[in-house]
């Protein structure tokens, strides 16, 4: 028989299967979610008292009275890193031989590779959305109004896809799920060499320099602008640009490495 499936239908079937895999191990979703929520609660608990209220009227009043608004972007960025699961999903299929089976069938190799990216994207939206929801419950209130939530989510999505691409490239290159997992260690420099707890101007010299080269900085700043300060279009633009460039770079790397992986040796 002819397999007359279109690319999109194949992608849909493969994505569905991948979602099923995720659903079968719900606990795997927890660590990243908990870390992200942890940022929100613990930092608000530790610093919220000072920077959320007591600093009012001093030069340290960068949270403008609502520290949740200030710290939520960090949590969201952390949640968006869940996109890095894409690479792990893909490499699991390579290790189990499922990838080879699909290759021996007349289906598009791009569908095989895009399915885990799709699920990574779902994951980013789901986790970021959940954190956002928690944020709203405990008092987040964007300076630009509710549309701010959408902006924050959209930046998180692009950023998360950047991590998805990065993990796919790293996973395929290393050929092991450990390789893909190790890639998530990028998380630490990404989050901590950035204006995580205070604005960039308040960082010490060396960290300020490091942060300037870290695209996470601009992503967090853009989200913060929307949450704390209002419409600062140049900051917003820089945020989208950083996230977009990062995603474009890593997705290109992912495509190159995936093409290699699906090529015949």
């Amino acid at each position, binding site marked *: 028989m002819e397999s007359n499936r279109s690319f999109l239908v194949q992608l849909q079937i493969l994505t*569905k299967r991948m979602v099923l895999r995720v659903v079968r191990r719900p606990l795997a979703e927890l660590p990243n979610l908990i870390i992200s929520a942890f940022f929100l609660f613990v930092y608000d608990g530790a610093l919220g008292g000072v920077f959320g209220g007591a600093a009012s009227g001093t030069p340290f009043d960068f949270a403008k009275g609502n520290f949740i608004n200030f710290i939520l972007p960090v949590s969201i960025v952390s949640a968006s890193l869940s996109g890095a699961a894409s690479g792990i999903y893909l490499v699991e299929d390579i290790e189990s*031989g499922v990838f080879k089976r699909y290759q021996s069938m007349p289906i598009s190799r791009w569908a095989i590779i895009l399915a885990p990216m799709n699920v990574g994207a779902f994951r980013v939206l789901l986790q970021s959305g959940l954190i956002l929801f928690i944020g709203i419950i405990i008092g987040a209130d964007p300076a630009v109004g509710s549309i701010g939530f959408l902006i924050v989510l959209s930046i998180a999505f692009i950023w998360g896809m950047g991590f998805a691409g990065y993990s796919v490239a790293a996973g395929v290159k290393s050929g092991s799920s450990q390789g893909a997992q190790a890639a998530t260690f990028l998380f630490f420099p990404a989050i901590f060499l950035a204006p995580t707890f205070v604005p960039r101007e308040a960082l010490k010299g060396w960290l300020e320099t490091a942060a300037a080269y870290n695209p996470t900085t601009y992503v967090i700043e853009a989200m913060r602008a929307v949450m704390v300060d209002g419409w600062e279009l140049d900051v917003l633009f820089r945020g989208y640009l950083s996230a977009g460039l990062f995603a474009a770079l890593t997705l290109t790397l992912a495509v190159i490495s995936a093409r290699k992986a699906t090529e*015949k040796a």
Partner: protein
Amino acid sequence: MLAVDVKNIKKTFISKQDIVEAVKDVSFQVKQGEIFGLLGPNGAGKSTTILMLTTLLSITEGSASVLGIDVASKDKEVREKIGVALQDTGLDNLLTGKELFFTTCRLWGYSKKDSEVRTGELLELVGLTEAAERRVKTYSGGMKRRLDLGLSLVHSPEILFLDEPTTGLDPGSRRVLWDEIKRLRDNGVTIILTTQYLEEADELADRIAIIDEGLVVAEGTADELKASIGGDVITFAFDNYDDLENAKNILKNTVQEKNELRITVEDGASKIPVYLKDLSSNGVEVSSVSASKPTLDDVFLEVTGYRLEGSEDIKKSEEKSKR
């Protein structure tokens, strides 16, 4: 038209460390509706050959076609026609058998409804209906093999490639798979399978190619191969080493294995008395003697110079399981 036509294919793996000639020169032809066995030891190049024929590896030199379609240039068309079960089963442990069949049916283009029907058929066919709702993780080795075979049958392929379909299975499960494979052949499916078991090749394959170190060293039906050795195999067993050594000198052209000597002659049974007389007149004591038709084992020894290890084990375990 030939089901599979392989002409002098070669595969060289080049890495930074070294160059491996996994397949040096392999040619064979498979007719439609037959089971063709590629028999060879570990590292012979069986899997590499299968991967090339199933479009998963490029062919370094030579050419191959499946149902007249060139494997190298028309890989997508070839994939439409073939079913593949590789040596390492590609199964998704987190899903159930049913879900795996359903997904695979959908990928082959069946509608949701048809996929459900086909899933039921295939589960029945490979005897997994009872385990259908269980996750593959909980399946035994034999069940996984059967599931893997079933998944390669979703689109009712005309040609089926099976790389060591029964390796690691107990004799009972092996039988089940053998019967299944024969039934497929009887329904018109052409099957190319690899094995390192002589019995399997003997029992299943209509024709056999013995492959060793990347080369086809013999080809034909099991009977042809056995006949190619000519005559019968007489086996002499000895109780002590001196007798064996003496006998070696007297009999000439023998092949030794442990405490036994083998000699291949025409019309073996009638020659036994002559040999025995010869030996006893030289003071050599023979503990037992027998004549038999050559086995594939003997063929293998003849064409490669060594025995296929492990083939004895499976015989023994099979005897055990019969008891």
